[in-house]
């Protein structure tokens, strides 16, 4: 596939172009990310949804160049614009080089799923934040401390001056996730990558964290790549949505288009299989037959075809579909995109 070489449009912050990541395992080669392209504009929230094994977390780690040692970065281009007028091709930089390290934490912050284990157990919250601030801002200890207190206040942790002395095990899950957010935002990054940040939390805590992220986003203006398997969360926070299935983007578009005018059978089927609050009671949920295939032997052609209600034999099971474009910057990787019968959602 040819790689797009034209410069990014001015509003663009991040652009992934045909990114491939493979893992060599004892059982064989896993093509965890198999040609993923998406983009995030400055100050926008991109939600990435998918079931387990769809490659959504791996893609995020590819942006941060944080893949494990057995990962093979098998192609594609990741471009990022740390400040207007500047463009960095992250994918061509050395993995642990100075430039990548400056981006990490400095221009791109990241928060993780497990607030229990994502913070160092033997350093206080303050120390962990201060270390990052001192590293990227090149300020002294006092200034870093002041910044840490300011950040903890921003994420609405009570008594920030005391809180910086606390250790993670002294905080609840929700408070830890707030501390994690403070750490990720410590250097005013242009982009925040949030990898299932609310999955491990209770629903009331999840609501708190979502509201916090939204208000911080409005205040600080950073863009967010929000990874989740929960369609409700995506609908709540995202401007644009990308739906992933088995290492590929099945469909991407504005949040309204994805939820109300899905073009890909997978998106549609997923939306139908979720029980919704206040829905007129139906006895049976719609389901997608079968299971997510084993990544070691992904189906040929469109990876979704064995489970797809509309699959065309001889086409969907042999040819990998191209991306079809629709108005409103919506695109779907399906042979039948735009030709599906209307269905009520």
């Amino acid at each position, binding site marked *: 596939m040819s790689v797009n070489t034209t410069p990014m449009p001015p509003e663009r912050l991040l652009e992934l172009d045909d990114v491939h990541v493979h893992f060599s395992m004892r059982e064989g080669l896993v093509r965890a990310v198999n040609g993923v392209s998406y983009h995030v504009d400055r100050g926008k929230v991109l939600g990435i949804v998918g079931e387990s094994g769809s490659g959504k977390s791996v893609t995020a780690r590819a942006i941060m160049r944080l893949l494990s040692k057995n990962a093979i970065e098998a192609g594609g281009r990741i471009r990022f614009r740390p400040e207007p007028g500047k463009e960095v091709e992250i994918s061509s930089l050395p993995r642990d080089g100075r430039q990548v390290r400056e981006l990490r934490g400095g221009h791109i912050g990241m928060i993780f799923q497990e607030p229990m284990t994502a913070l160092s157990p033997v350093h206080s919250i303050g120390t962990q934040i201060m270390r990052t601030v001192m590293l990227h801002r090149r300020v002294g200890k006092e200034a870093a401390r002041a910044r840490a207190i300011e950040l903890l206040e921003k994420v609405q942790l009570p008594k920030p001056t005391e809180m910086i002395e606390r250790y993670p095990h002294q905080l609840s899950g929700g408070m830890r996730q707030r501390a994690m957010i403070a750490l990720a935002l410590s250097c005013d990054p242009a982009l925040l990558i949030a990898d299932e940040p609310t999955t491990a939390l209770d629903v009331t805590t999840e609501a708190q964290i979502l509201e916090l992220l939204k208000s911080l986003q409005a205040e600080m203006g950073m863009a967010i790549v929000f990874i989740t398997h929960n369609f409700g969360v995506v609908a709540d926070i995202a401007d644009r949505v990308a739906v992933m299935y088995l290492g590929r983007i099945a469909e991407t578009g504005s949040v309204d288009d994805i939820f109300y005018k899905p073009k890909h059978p997978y998106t549609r089927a997923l939306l139908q299989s979720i029980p919704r609050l206040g829905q007129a009671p139906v006895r049976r949920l719609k*389901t997608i*037959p*079968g*299971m997510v295939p*084993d990544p070691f032997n992904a189906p040929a052609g469109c990876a979704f075809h*064995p*489970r797809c209600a509309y699959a065309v034999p001889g086409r969907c099971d042999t040819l990998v579909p191209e991306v079809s474009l629709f108005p409103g910057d919506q695109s779907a990787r399906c042979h039948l995109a735009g030709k599906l019968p209307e269905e009520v959602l």
Partner: protein
Amino acid sequence: MAIETLEAPVTEAAPGREEQLYTAKPWTLIWWRFRQHRLAVASLVFLVLLCVAAIFADFVSPYTPSSIDRLNTFSPPRAVHLFHEGAFKGPFVYALKRTRDPETARVTYEADREEILPVRLFVRGEPYRFLGLVPTDLHLFGVDHRRQRINLLGTDSLGRDLFTRLLYGARVTLSAGLVGVAFSFVLGLALGAVSGYYGGWLDAGIQRLMEFIRSIPTIPLWMGLAAALPIAWDPLFVYVLITIILSLIGWTHLARVVRGRFFSLKTEDYVLAARLAGASEYRVITKHMLPAMTSYIIAAMTLAVPEMILGETALSFLGLGLRPPVVSWGVLLQEAQNLRTISLAPWLLAPGAAVVLVVLAFNFMGDGLRDAADPYGR
């Protein structure tokens, strides 16, 4: 009404190899994984061979451990050759010429290149009772000569064959290790299981006991207990007591492993599922908990054997453990205690090499087992 099935074929009838994997018994999986550790497999083979040789030591060794040869003291190891002056002769050793330095009165040995002694299988030699039962004089190998002997590892100060003594010593040392582990296993399993299964104050009490025992320095304690054994007692009885002393310390480690496994297994949902299906406590323990633990316990036991062997060797070496006429590796090493003997006859350190090899083999095997012990690890 019809029950919805997983409509799309989940996995097509899995090809042979996969189906084999899916239906493989737990021990088969453990064996498959163990097999991948080549060092562990080699260690296993080595230990099995050594055990067989030790069990049949009287047959495998060419002499008896206490047969003295005054004209053959401190003779060096003899190499087994195949070629004599370029001609293939089958396995043989050269005869040994004994000369005495007239000035220092020191005995030196030199290979007599003229006389070759073929190594023969199943030779008649010193009489013994096979496995302590059948009287016979058949030995696996030896040389047919009235005066000359085959000493693969040389001889000691009394001209006794070190190879023979090493094999007999293996009997005592290895069995001391295994019996010691067996003792500590019984203690550790019992107390660890009680501790882990019942928990509460019983667990707390046993934990405290283990802390007490761990706070006693091992070697001085061993030494003290071993020194308490009277010299006059029957050597066999002393041997049993020494193994018990060794196991007195070792059990705490095993108990900890057992307790930890019990604790984690007790909270597994499948154990609760069995209980809720109405399974008795006995069934839960024997069908679910013990099978899940055995591989871990075997690994832990394997790793505990070398401790016991090292303990026996050290105590006997110091003269506090087993004593002659019992032959153990520690007893044999006593002869190698002073520097002059070592520089005169470095081959007397051979039992030390044997200890190192056996300890390493048990460690490698234990590591391999431990890695293979959990084939279902997520």
